[in-house]
């Protein structure tokens, strides 16, 4: 009696009322009671809220039972009316029941009232059900018309004999518009022939036919249906009709498709995931591997490893057993780096994690592994180790070079003192000169070491890197024998980096000379490429903090002898050389490394023995600047009388970058021609004293002969200091520099000379 219902009691008998109230409260606690002393009071309240049951004491109905029932029935058929009657004839009871009373209790006892009231909820339910059934003409029609399926009865002539409401709705025609029509009129001949006829024929042979197909209905458009044809026959006779049931399964299909797509997607993910996925049984026998795993293991197809034990691929025997027992203990486990043999026997390192897959009852059934190839990680760790090593060596070498310079200064000084003491004819003078040239050589070595250890300040200016690269290529090409060709591909010309052009030239020159030496006397090629990468690519390639939005990449690749990996790892260390003694100092690449590191760049090397090597230089691009910002030269012409071509080349490169126009002369004729040409008069002459073609005397003679007054900057070698005095006496030498000349020095000297 849980369903609450309401009870109205009409009586003026307060003792009866009180008894009833306490009885109902005790036995039917979910019933709410209202009570009235007359039918008028009841009717007033009943307009507001109807009671489910009215218990009416007939003694107190002022207008009698008949008007009372009429009044209630006018408004309401749902109320159960129970009369309490003191004395009553059987005829009257029948009469009252006919008029709609639910029950008449006479004589009135509390027990009887309770029995009736307890019966009410069940009665209520039954009445609702019967009323529902009575409302429909036929129960079958109701079901048929409310079915979500299109239902129809079809005869042997393919004509519709009966259709339900759903069918009509879908075709937006009423029943009359369909019944009597053939299927091909409704569905169209093509659909009928291709999707319906054959199945109907099969059904008329006595079969239940089920199939899925898409059909076009006017209301719903193209949808997917499940169609069932059921044969109808009379008794044991032949099939005369069939019942067609067509159920829209588009949504179902759709969700099935989603599930399939998801499965497909997951499969694709699992296949293409860059992580090697492997499923083994609990003994390590391989059941399934994805593509990434096969790739890591250098295996061509899954079938080759399926059925093998994963432990066979472990380099360390017994390690798998340890892993296995750890897994059985804790279900998920990351094992870190594990050494494995690939299918073709190479040793690799993989980061391995695994977990246990258990069946429904919790027993382990599979081990699923994830393998990540950690060779890049290893490579990066190795690279870091190398870099730290270079850093340490650099610090050591730099300190050493510093102390060494003190010693050199002492030796050089004493040799000069000695020279002063010796008479000009002394045979010992030659020996002293040799001591001095040895010190010069030592100085160039300490300079290189200091560059490697990044203790030389580079004078950085915006430099167009392809200009320097092209100049270097031209310079190298001119000295090459026919066996080597150089081709270059500059994909992004005109980009600037912040660098010391002299040092940059040194970098490229070293890399080229390295390539040339690697090729040796064989026929070979050097290919140079310059292009730009964005910060994220640079970050990936270099695995270090990135300082610019873009990086210039210059790669210099040769077809030379190549290197073993062990050589490659140490190639930037000072004095690490594989060449015979005397062929190179073993400092070239160390210097390159130092210069590039100082420019916030990086250099990478890859090499294959007997195939060739490739050095790749990354340098941060200077953005938002162009060459003009470095235009302190304002197009003024500098005439270079060159001695050692290499030195003047790098100086002139730097100066060109700063906006000077460089005129080069290396012989007397060129010099005279340039000076005689009034249009091309230089603003300044830079004379390198070691010029073999134009001697000091030549310079003095020409100045006197042509009567020019162009200022001169003299660049001397240390041991030639006295020799230049005659030139100085000319009066045009504004500045005198001693080799090696730094960029800052020459800039200052030029500016001082021109003002």
């Amino acid at each position, binding site marked *: 009696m849980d369903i609450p219902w309401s009870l109205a009691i009409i009586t003026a008998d307060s003792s009866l009322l009180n008894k009833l109230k306490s009885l109902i409260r005790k036995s039917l606690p979910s019933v709410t009671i209202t009570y009235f002393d007359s039918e008028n009071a009841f009717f007033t309240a009943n307009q507001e809220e109807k009671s489910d049951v009215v218990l009416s004491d007939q003694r107190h109905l002022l207008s009698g039972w008949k008007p009372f029932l009429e009044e209630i029935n006018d408004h309401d058929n749902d109320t159960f009316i129970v009369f309490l009657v003191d004395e009553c004839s059987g005829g009257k009871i029948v009469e009252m029941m006919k008029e709609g009373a639910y029950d008449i209790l006479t004589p009135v006892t509390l027990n009887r009232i309770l029995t009736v009231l307890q019966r009410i909820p069940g009665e209520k339910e039954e009445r609702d059900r019967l009323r529902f059934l009575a409302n429909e003409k036929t129960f079958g029609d109701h079901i048929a018309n409310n079915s979500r399926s299109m239902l129809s009865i079809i005869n042997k002539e393919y004509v519709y004999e009966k259709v339900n409401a759903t069918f009509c709705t879908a075709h937006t025609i009423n029943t009359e518009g369909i019944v009597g029509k053939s299927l091909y009129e409704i569905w169209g001949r093509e659909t009928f022939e291709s999707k319906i006829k054959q199945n109907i024929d099969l059904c008329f042979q006595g079969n239940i036919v089920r199939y899925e197909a898409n059909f076009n209905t006017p209301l719903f458009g193209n949808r997917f249906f499940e169609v069932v044809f059921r044969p109808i026959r009379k008794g044991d006779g032949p099939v005369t009709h069939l019942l067609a049931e067509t159920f829209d399964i588009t949504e179902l299909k759709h969700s099935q498709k989603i599930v399939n797509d998801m499965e497909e997607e997951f499969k694709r993910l699992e296949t293409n995931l860059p992580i090697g996925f492997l499923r083994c049984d609990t003994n390590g026998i391989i059941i399934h591997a994805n593509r990434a795993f096969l790739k890591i293991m250098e295996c061509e197809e899954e079938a080759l490893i399926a059925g093998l034990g994963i432990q066979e691929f472990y380099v360390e025997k017994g390690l798998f057993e340890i892993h296995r027992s750890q897994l059985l203990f804790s279900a998920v486990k990351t094992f870190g780096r594990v050494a494995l043999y690939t299918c073709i026997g190479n040793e690799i390192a993989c980061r391995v994690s695994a977990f246990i897959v258990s069946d429904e009852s919790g027993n382990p059934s599979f081990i699923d592994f994830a393998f990540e190839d950690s060779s890049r990680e290893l490579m990066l760790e190795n690279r870091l180790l190398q870099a730290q090593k270079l850093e340490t060596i650099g610090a050591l070498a730099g300190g050493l070079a*510093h102390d060494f310079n003190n010693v050199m200064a002492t030796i050089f000084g004493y040799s000069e003192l000695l020279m002063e003491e010796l008479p000009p004819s002394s045979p010992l003078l030659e020996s002293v000169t040799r001591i001095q040239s040895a*010190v010069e050589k030592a100085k160039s070595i300490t300079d290189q070491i200091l560059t490697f250890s990044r203790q030389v300040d580079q004078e950085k200016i915006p430099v167009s890197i392809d200009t320097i690269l092209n100049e270097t290529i031209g310079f190298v090409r001119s000295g090459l024998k026919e066996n080597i060709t150089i081709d270059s591909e500059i994909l992004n010309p005109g980009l600037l980096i912040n660098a010391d052009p002299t040092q940059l030239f040194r970098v490229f020159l070293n890399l080229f000379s390295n390539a040339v030496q690697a090729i040796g006397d064989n026929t070979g090629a050097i290919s140079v490429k310059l292009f730009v990468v964005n910060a994220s690519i640079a970050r990936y390639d270099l695995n270090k903090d990135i300082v610019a939005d873009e990086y210039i990449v210059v790669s210099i690749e040769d077809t030379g002898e190549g290197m073993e990996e062990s050589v490659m790892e140490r190639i930037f260390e000072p004095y690490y050389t594989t060449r015979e003694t005397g062929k190179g100092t073993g400092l070239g690449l160390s210097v390159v490394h130092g210069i590039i590191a100082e420019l916030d760049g990086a250099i990478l090397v890859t090499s294959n023995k007997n195939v060739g090597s490739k050095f790749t230089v990354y340098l941060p691009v200077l953005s938002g600047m162009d060459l003009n910002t470095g235009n302190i030269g304002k197009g003024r012409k500098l005439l270079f009388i060159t001695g050692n071509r290499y030195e003047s080349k790098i100086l002139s490169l730097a100066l060109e970058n700063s906006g000077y126009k460089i005129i080069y002369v290396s012989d007397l004729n060129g010099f005279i021609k340039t000076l005689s040409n009034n249009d091309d008069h230089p603003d300044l002459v830079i004379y390198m004293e070691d010029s073999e073609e134009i001697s000091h005397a030549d310079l003095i003679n020409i100045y006197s002969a042509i009567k020019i007054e162009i200022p001169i900057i003299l660049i001397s070698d240390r041991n030639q200091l006295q020799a230049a005095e005659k030139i100085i006496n000319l009066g045009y030498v504004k500045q005198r520099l001693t080799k090696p000349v730094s960029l800052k020095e020459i800039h200052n000297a030029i500016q001082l000379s021109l003002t």
Partner: protein
Amino acid sequence: MACILLVEDDHDLREMLRTSLVKRKYIVSEASNGKEALLRFKPSMTDLVITDLIMPDEDGLKVIMKIKEIKPGIKIIAISGGGKAGPGNYLDLAKILGADEIFSKPFSINDLMRKIEVMLSPE
């Protein structure tokens, strides 16, 4: 005769420089580090200071600053062999702090002597 204060921590190099200077008739007082240099520096007597830059105790840069403070007109030559902080940096700093000339080791003693002669000659 001009008086020169020579500050250099490398004994051999200092000895070599002293020999050269004495030979050219300069009066030389020596110091092997910055602290000593400031003790030996006599404003009324010293005409020129040659100082190394990287030295134990007070380094050469401090020597240059303090001496220029005491006697602004004094001539100073800084010499350095490069190393720890980068020779370029050190010598440039020396110039900014008041060194009149800078020499990077190893240098030509003749160049140095010529420079001293020019610096000490009356303008």
